């Protein structure tokens, strides 16, 4: 009833003993995620909060616990290495929360991730959640509710804003995926749209994009050709000036490319319902989903 994560998700947390890693591991455990292992080199043999076994390497964690998903909370300088390690250990789904990973590192890392047939989500993303089943990352569990709308977004808190609107109005979610705001990311809109289209338990899809790059335009072209489920979309950054990085490394209009207008036009041309405000999501979905 979801994409990418479900009750079968067995999670290893890379950087489990760090400040961010330990805080969010507790949140994930509290939500009910099956956190089966942690990895911090040099702390192998310990137990996190007397519960989760800590290993020195991801390979060891996989061998001893059968972990099938990894989430990464390590500093930017070591994040690419952590992704490579998870892929090398055979983890099929790797979620990198870390913000500030050098783009050159990602350019070098992606070919290896692909060669191992692994899926990377992020970096610089809030992770994903299948409400009621598994939360991998930092999306607050209390604002989500199980249901049949899939959501994919480049942003963090803007996602929360939209999810919150949905939940408060009785619209639950199948899975919410934050794909990240960096220029080079492992999973894009199209990957998620394809998965939602194929998921029998998703009835409609919300796409939240922002300025910069052409991912939203490509997503629109994909929707036009391959998606039969209703899609509504929002683009943040309509008032952003050109040539400035709006927080996210990927949120930058270069020259005349990557503007909100061209993305909104692409959405409209593909039959995607264009939300003018985050609050529009509820009404627009209700209109489109019988």
């Amino acid at each position, binding site marked *: 009833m979801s994409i990418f994560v479900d009750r079968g998700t067995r999670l290893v947390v890379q950087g489990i003993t760090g400040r961010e890693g330990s805080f969010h591991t507790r949140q994930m455990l509290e939500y009910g995620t099956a956190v089966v292992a942690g990895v911090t080199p040099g702390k192998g043999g310990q137990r996190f909060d007397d519960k989760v076994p800590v290993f020195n390497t991801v390979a060891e964690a996989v061998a001893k616990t059968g972990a099938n998903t990894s989430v990464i909370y390590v500093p930017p300088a070591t994040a690419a290495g952590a992704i490579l390690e998870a892929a090398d250990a055979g983890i099929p789904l790797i979620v990198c929360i870390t913000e500030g990973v050098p783009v050159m590192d990602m350019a070098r890392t992606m070919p290896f991730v692909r060669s191992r047939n692994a899926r990377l989500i992020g970096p610089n993303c809030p992770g994903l959640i299948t409400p009621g089943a598994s939360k991998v990352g930092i999306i607050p569990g209390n604002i989500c509710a199980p249901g049949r709308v899939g959501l994919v977004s480049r942003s963090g808190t803007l996602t929360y804003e939209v999810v*919150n609107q949905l939940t408060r109005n009785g619209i639950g979610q199948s899975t919410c995926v934050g794909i990240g705001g960096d220029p080079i990311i492992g999973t894009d809109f199209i990957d998620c749209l394809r998965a939602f289209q194929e998921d029998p338990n998703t009835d409609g899809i919300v796409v939240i994009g922002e300025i910069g790059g052409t991912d939203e335009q490509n997503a629109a072209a994909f929707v036009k050709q391959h998606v039969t489920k209703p899609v509504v979309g929002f683009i943040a950054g309509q008032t952003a000036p050109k040539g400035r990085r709006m927080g996210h490394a990927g949120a930058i209009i270069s020259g005349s490319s990557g503007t909100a207008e061209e993305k909104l036009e692409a959405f409209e041309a593909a039959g995607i319902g264009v939300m003018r405000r985050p609050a529009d999501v509820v009404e627009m979905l209700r209109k489109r989903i019988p």
Partner: protein
Amino acid sequence: MNLHEYQARALLAAVGVPMFEGDVASTPSEAESIARRIGTPVVIKAQVHTGGRGKAGGVKLAKTPGEAGDIASQILGMTIKGLTVHKVLVVPAADIATESYVGIIMDRGTQRPVYMVSSAGGVDIEEVAAKTPEKITRLPIDPVYGLMPHQALTLAFSLYQDFAHVRAAARILDQLYRVFVANGASLAEINPLVTTPGGRVLALDAKIVIDDNELDRRPDLALLRDESAEEPSEVVARRANLSFIKLDGNVGCVVNGAGLAMATMDLVKFYGGEPANFLDIGGSSNPEKVINALKIITSDPNVKAILFNIFGGITRTDDVANGIVAATRQFKVKVPIVIRLTGTNETEALKILESVGMRALSDMDQAVEQAVRLAREAP
């Protein structure tokens, strides 16, 4: 982070890219002595982070060392697109036979560095790309193997017929790629790459943009940042670990998260207002960040109302409330503040605000509308 032309030249010179001798000056007398040393005529070029320097009068020819000093004194201190010129580059005014463009960008689509070369150089390459894309040769580079020798040659052959030129250009293309990778650049370009009547191939102007994410592990590059070339409030914000961009409107915005910050600005516009800034206080916001944010925003005289939009997922809204209260105790905020806050520890946050007579809304649209109205009604 943008580098100045003279800084980009230094990185290229360090790997042996051939270029005319030249030097940077911050006073007219320095410019004069550089002109004397390298020989006249010279070109004096303003060092600012913007295009269109020539049109703005920031690039000028000087025939004698004395004139170089005079022109430098005109250009130094002038303002180009809001940026004050603090340094000029002095280079020989040489005869040029051809001008080409060579550059590398980190491409999102291919997830690789992409080389772009064009024999239509010396002009804005984006214009060439938009109007005559067939004049640009594009080549994605495998970041694992780097630029291969035959690739460098192939690119160079698309620029020149003379094999001596091709060989020289291929070498420069290789050097530029090395600079791009070694410095974690998101853009590195030589524009124009020129040939001289004597048959040499030289870099005349260079532009390098460093990926901000490299700066933590590369303090040597971080030192190249020229804070005098930036908006002062943005410098203060960066030091306080805030992501801030100044705009021209009158509604100051304090938001957690980049996407929500952009959406908030858009909503201000939707309700007929103009945002005064983009400001993301980040995920783990301690009260200190909120105080700094308010200081920066209130220092902008255009700001007539301040809008807080906080969705507490990871951010604790009580931290933000404490920050607002502490800030208003530290200094007087003369414009109205509208607070929208919801999420983690919301009840505590509301109590903290109530204790000093402040209120918060839970709906984003309501808060934005109210802030826009207050800004409009302000005296």
